[in-house]
């Protein structure tokens, strides 16, 4: 066959595939938005569920997800950042850092349902915290850890060595260099990583099934040992249980839309920050 023709055919196939895949994404998003947009109202966002969860809003679930985000980041962020500082600033290319990186990758590849199992065994049962925000936060925090570490490491690696050397030349110690030079420079990108982890955490369902999620709890939590409703779990139960699934569909679409919007806003913010600051950093050297 004519090789020009072969190329033409092949390239058209790839173009179609590209359009196809993007089409799938737009289809899913469009479907949820189309069906969910009519449900969204101030009441839906700021009210508790009513009338057998068919009416009212999903405010407790939004607050619950927010609690879990904050809680899990309190667990994951300091640990993750310190871990990344250690591998990147102290033992950059040694055996130790290779080992740590491997373990981080492995932890990142563990399915979320295993974190659920583990969280239930350790935090809910062994520590006897029961189903609670704190148990859920620890479970989700550990799940987010690899992502925080990886993004922080990338952020630290983007800091040019010339800055470090310059700092040492001025007589600064390693810690001072990290504190006053490396971290401030890498800060925007570290924040990007943090935001990405929040995106990941806010959509997880399997880890919270047995560690925190409540089916119905219209009151807001008053302590970290309370259960909460959460958006992804709410979407799951409302789309599979209840006496009248059809009647619950609008609420399900609305919940899905809120959840997607939340995650997309988070991801957009992250990529915006990254682009904005990587230009700055790139221009600086």
């Amino acid at each position, binding site marked *: 066959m004519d090789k020009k023709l072969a190329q033409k055919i092949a390239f058209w196939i790839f173009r179609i595939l590209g359009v196809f895949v993007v089409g799938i994404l737009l289809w899913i998003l469009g479907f949820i938005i189309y069906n969910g947009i009519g449900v969204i109202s101030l009441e839906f966002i700021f009210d508790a*569920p*009513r*009338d*057998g*969860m068919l009416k009212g809003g999903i405010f407790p679930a939004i607050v619950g997800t927010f609690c879990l985000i904050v809680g899990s980041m309190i667990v994951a962020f300091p640990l993750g950042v310190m871990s990344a500082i250690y591998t990147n600033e102290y033992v950059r290319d040694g055996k130790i850092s290779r080992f740590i990186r491997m373990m981080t990758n492995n932890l990142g590849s563990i399915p979320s349902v295993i974190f659920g199992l583990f969280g239930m065994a350790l935090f809910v049962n062994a520590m006897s*915290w*029961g*189903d609670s925000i704190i148990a859920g936060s620890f479970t989700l925090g550990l799940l987010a850890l690899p992502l925080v570490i990886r993004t922080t490491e990338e952020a630290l690696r983007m800091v040019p060595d010339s800055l470090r050397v310059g700092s040492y030349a001025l007589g600064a110690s390693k810690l001072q260099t990290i504190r006053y030079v490396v971290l401030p420079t890498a800060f925007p990108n570290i924040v990007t990583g943090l935001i990405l982890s929040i995106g990941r955490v806010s959509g997880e369902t399997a880890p919270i099934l047995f560690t925190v*999620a*409540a*089916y*119905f*709890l*219209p*009151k807001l939590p*008053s*302590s970290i*040992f*309370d*259960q909460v409703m959460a958006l992804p779990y709410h979407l799951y*139960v409302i789309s*599979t*249980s*209840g*006496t*009248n*699934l*059809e009647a*619950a569909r609008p609420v399900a679409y609305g919940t899905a839309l809120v959840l997607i919007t939340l995650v997309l806003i988070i991801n957009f913010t992250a990529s915006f920050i990254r682009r904005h600051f990587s230009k700055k950093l790139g221009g600086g050297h």
Partner: protein
Amino acid sequence: MKKLLFTSILVAASILTAQTIKGSDTVLPLSQQEAETFMKVNKNARVTVTGGGSGVGLSALIEGTTDIAQSSRKIKFDEKKKLEEKGAKVKEIIIAFDALAVVVNPKNKVSNLTREQLEGIFTGKITNWKEVGGEDLKIVAYSRETSSGTYEFFKEEVLKKKDYMPGIMSMPATGAIVQSIGQTPGAIGYIGLAYLDAKVKAIHVSYDNGKTFVEPSVKTAKDETYPIVRPLIYYYVDKSEATVKPFIDYVLSAAGQKIVSDIGFITK
């Protein structure tokens, strides 16, 4: 210890009537609405409702992580034993009754089945609708997850404790069964009466080898002509009586029982 101190301070400071209800998915919509209206009347009350299945609720009661276990089956002997070992006496309150309807796709011509035929279908001995007088169509049997009281009750009452066939379609919740049966021509499944709607057709069941077939309804369940009826129960331990009493009293009150019949369950 720290945790204990922390929570006890919190509890003492804010709410005296915090309670959790956990268990059966069948009772879930009922408990949810009861909790909702209860909290409207008692502004200080704080009721958490969680599902998971009757087994979940009872083991949570044993672990002490819930105040009320909602169940669609009677407590098992060993569950009761475990509670007693922990020094707790279990209390049982029947809050409503539920009839289990066997349902098929509306297009299915079969509308009468005997208990023996149902046993054959769900244990996998009968696999085609033509064997029970229908058209030549493969039977697709739907069941609930093993954790549900509905699963166990149906197994005891209709299958006479035989196991379901391996590979039965099992759904995480009753709503999903209704959904699937409505879409699937050869499907059969069992659901609580409250879940019955136009998307599925209820089978008339005979427990006397085909002499009489009874349609499931609130009426036939109440006059006990329909055989597959079970109690919906709240279990709690006597120690927490003071905490749970107001709520349970509410459920048993006229207002509470109105919700029972509104949802489609049978009042006490």
